[in-house]
């Protein structure tokens, strides 16, 4: 039995005489963060987090603790029971998940789990050595995360996940380039190659020029489209947002909203993403076809929103742990179908005259209902002229409609890339988006910023 499941079952036993479910995160991770080509903030974390949800006569209370001895679990059970006793009946509570078989998934690699701090420091050194002409900034991190959910209804599921990411910003005062890679298998990653990609990009960004703001035709690398997609997903592909009318898809399901080459699914069983067997209330993951050939089909659901909809919807296995469920269900395994382009150069040919975007920075959702997102480009923005990627340009302020961007697709690469989307706040929970590079006729730039570099 995994440590996480053992903790979950002990926590369930600590809740006497009530309905309850428990979700557990067990993390062991190392983070070799580097700056100016030296490891600067190396961080090792071990933690165990137990979240109990106690139900008393329809009233619900939650408590979280990392004190995992018997006294700590009993105290947390007491806090959750007190919270339930203090609350009125929660009519939106959908009850506990019944035991159900969960699918077998990948996502755990013994060799990755066995990486030591010395291995992590060595991998960081390999990355640094891959960019000798620039300062290298970023990190190499790997970790093991066990999650488990158990309940008084007899639910008992667990999964162990590994993840590893390398991030490389190669930079000098007037040049910067970016690359990253992620997987649940360390052997998939070559830190030096990632750093070389960043350095080669950086070398092309010197002497960046100005450009007049306008709506451009654009090539977006996977790093860029991944971030836009996830911001859109967080606010629009979430059943709670749909039901509350905040989602771009509210009232628009079934309509052809996007280019027919835009197909998007969330599939926790896809081994090319970070596979997940169940969500954080123990519901088995269901593949969800979100957009099919440009037609909006569905969003992701948890038990609470399925009950709220009241129209036969069921959870698709996308719940967060309580109390974070207030955000609604989240698609952690988004996969956007690829197209037919063999390379980003072919996408540039489709754009003909426009811009090329490597990476984005500090996105903000200006209008979630319309899918309008603002942010900056950085670390590799170029002109596209005559179908070729040509000269570097300064960082660009964009305020653009994501729906318009994917309605105006000009092409997609056949190859798709998993891009890490975790910033590693709070408990580690690996997730990312699987995306191609894209070309679009609609990427709206509203201003210009500073040049590349530090």
């Amino acid at each position, binding site marked *: 039995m995994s440590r996480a499941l053992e903790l979950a079952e002990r926590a369930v036993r600590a809740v006497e005489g009530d309905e309850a479910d428990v979700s557990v995160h067990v993390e062991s991770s190392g983070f070799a963060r580097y700056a100016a080509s030296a490891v600067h903030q190396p961080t090792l974390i071990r933690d165990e987090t137990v979240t109990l949800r106690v139900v008393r006569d329809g009233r619900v209370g939650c408590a979280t603790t990392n004190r*995992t001895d018997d006294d700590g679990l009993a105290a947390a059970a007491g806090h959750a029971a007190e919270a339930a006793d203090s609350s009125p009946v929660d009519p939106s509570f959908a009850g506990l998940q019944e035991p159900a078989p969960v699918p077998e998934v990948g996502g755990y690699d013994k060799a990755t789990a066995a990486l030591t701090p010395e291995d992590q420091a060595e991998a960081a050194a390999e990355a640094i050595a891959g960019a000798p002409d620039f300062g290298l900034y970023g990190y190499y991190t790997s970790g093991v995360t066990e999650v488990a959910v158990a309940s008084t209804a007899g639910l008992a599921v667990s999964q162990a996940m590994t993840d590893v990411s390398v991030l490389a910003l190669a930079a000098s005062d007037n040049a910067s380039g970016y690359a990253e890679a992620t997987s649940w298998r360390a052997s998939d990653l070559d830190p030096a190659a990632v750093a070389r990609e960043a350095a080669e990009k950086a070398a092309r960004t010197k002497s960046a020029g100005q450009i007049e703001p306008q709506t451009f035709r654009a090539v977006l690398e996977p790093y860029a489209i991944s971030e836009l997609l996830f911001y859109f997903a967080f606010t629009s592909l979430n059943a709670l947002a749909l039901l509350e009318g905040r989602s771009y898809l509210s009232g628009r399901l079934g309509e052809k909203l996007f280019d027919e080459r835009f197909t998007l699914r969330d599939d926790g069983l896809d081994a090319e993403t970070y596979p997940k067997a169940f969500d954080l209330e123990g519901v088995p993951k269901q593949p969800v076809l979100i957009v099919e050939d440009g037609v909006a089909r569905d969003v992701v659901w948890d038990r609470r929103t399925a009950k709220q909809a009241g129209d036969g919807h069921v959870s698709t296995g996308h719940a967060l742990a309580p109390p974070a469920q207030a955000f609604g269900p989240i698609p952690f395994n988004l996969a956007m179908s690829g197209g037919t382009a063999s390379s980003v150069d072919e996408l540039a040919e489709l754009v003909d005259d426009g811009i090329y975007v490597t990476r984005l920075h500090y996105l903000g959702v200006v209008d979630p209902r319309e899918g309008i997102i603002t942010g900056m480009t950085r670390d590799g923005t170029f002109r596209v002229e005559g179908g070729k990627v040509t000269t570097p340009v300064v960082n660009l302020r964009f305020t653009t409609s994501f729906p318009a961007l994917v309605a105006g697709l000009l092409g997609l690469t056949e190859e798709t890339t998993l891009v890490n989307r975790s910033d590693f706040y709070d408990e580690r929970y690996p997730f990312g988006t699987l995306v191609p590079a894209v070309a679009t006729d609609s990427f709206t730039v509203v201003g210009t910023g500073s040049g590349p570099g530090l």
Partner: protein
Amino acid sequence: MQDLAGHAIDAAVAAGAGYADSRVVQRRAQLVATKNGEVDSVSDSETEGIGVRVLVDGAWGFAGDPRLTEEGARDAALRAVAFARASASRAHTRVELAPVPPASGDYSSPMERDPVEVPLEEKIALCLRAEEGMRRAEVKITEATVRAMGEQRVFRSSEGASVTQRFVECGGGIDALAVSGDGRVQNRSYPSAHGGSSAQAGWEFVESLGLDREAPRVGEEAAALLTAPACPSGITTIVVDAEQMVLQVHESVGHPTELDRVYGTEAAYAGTSFLKAGDLGSLRYGSEHMNITADPTTALGLGTFGWDDEGSPARRQPVVEGGVLTGYLASRETSALIGRDLGGSMRADNWSRMPLVRMTNLHLEPGAGSLDDLLADVDDGLYLSTNKSWSIDDKRLNFQFGTQVAWEIKKGKLGKMLRDPTYMGVTPKFWGRLDAVAGPQEWTMFGLTNCGKGQPGQHAHVSHGTSPARFRDVQVGVRS
């Protein structure tokens, strides 16, 4: 806890650390959230553990362990040393720390009523009452939240520092989301967006917010925004309310003056800064009306403490005086790099994270006069209120911010309400267009709990005090 912290220091030094510090943290937090008249969540969370930071041959190492036992403390120390040693063998520079006298003493947040001990029933009732006041036909979603936190933090270092601090925080906020028949959405919040406002204080702070008192206005304004005209595009004068000025100060002054960003250690994630170390004392950041102070001694501030997380004492330090950059937010390491004693801003969000240079309480000092005085000198402009969206570039230069609402200003008076306002600018040019800050009677402090930085990510709790401020010739109404 002091003994455990000391045990970790002893183990780290015995294993070869040239410097070591340790933090033992025990935290309990509560969150109550209601939505549409029902309880959305009631949660109580505890976390505890020890974090050990070491220097071995001039290279950092850090490890956190949740076990508050001698074994946990020793394991954290040894793992931190091992990681530092693995890094040191490949380092080309040695970290040096500016000297600081070993800290000793206790600090406790002042409070009248412990917010964690306030009955949950009372917290739920306050939220439901506030929500009730926001209800209108057009308002489809009402939300209210209150939070409370108590924390003990023990710090020791191999230089002899020994500090115990007890922090208490609480806060709350309300939000109304109005949806029109044709699917348009608008929202209003109080006292600020993104979770309300918090303070280092007892429950009396939450009571002072008057959530239920303000609720009817919040609901009315959310509904009214549905039929308000859109903010026009153009160049105009803006008067920014104190709540939005908090974000303006945070993003365009706070982050760029973090000295670790200036030296590049945040380059890959949060970004760097348009400022250089040599700009200190000479760079014109804004107009003569711009005075910014970092003050971890401010009463009620979320960034208030006795000592920071590397034992530097709390002290008030100017950052911008008369529009000229005169200070940075710094650590002992970055103070040594710049050759000035600027330390006191190192903070970690928990036992499991390494301290980083963070904002404490960063204030825009008040000017003179009232909000009405600021408005009176505007022939044609906009009054912007309450943050809605934000984005700023990696050097903290080019920004675009949106607010929940604007009112036009015509001949010195507020006019009609406008929806979807945005404005953009370039940091020093924008602050250069500051021509008035309202006086102390308009100065308000807000506490934020969502400032993100670092890899792995950390949330900082920071406060900003500001008065409404007026800027000339600003681009507004940016849309896709």
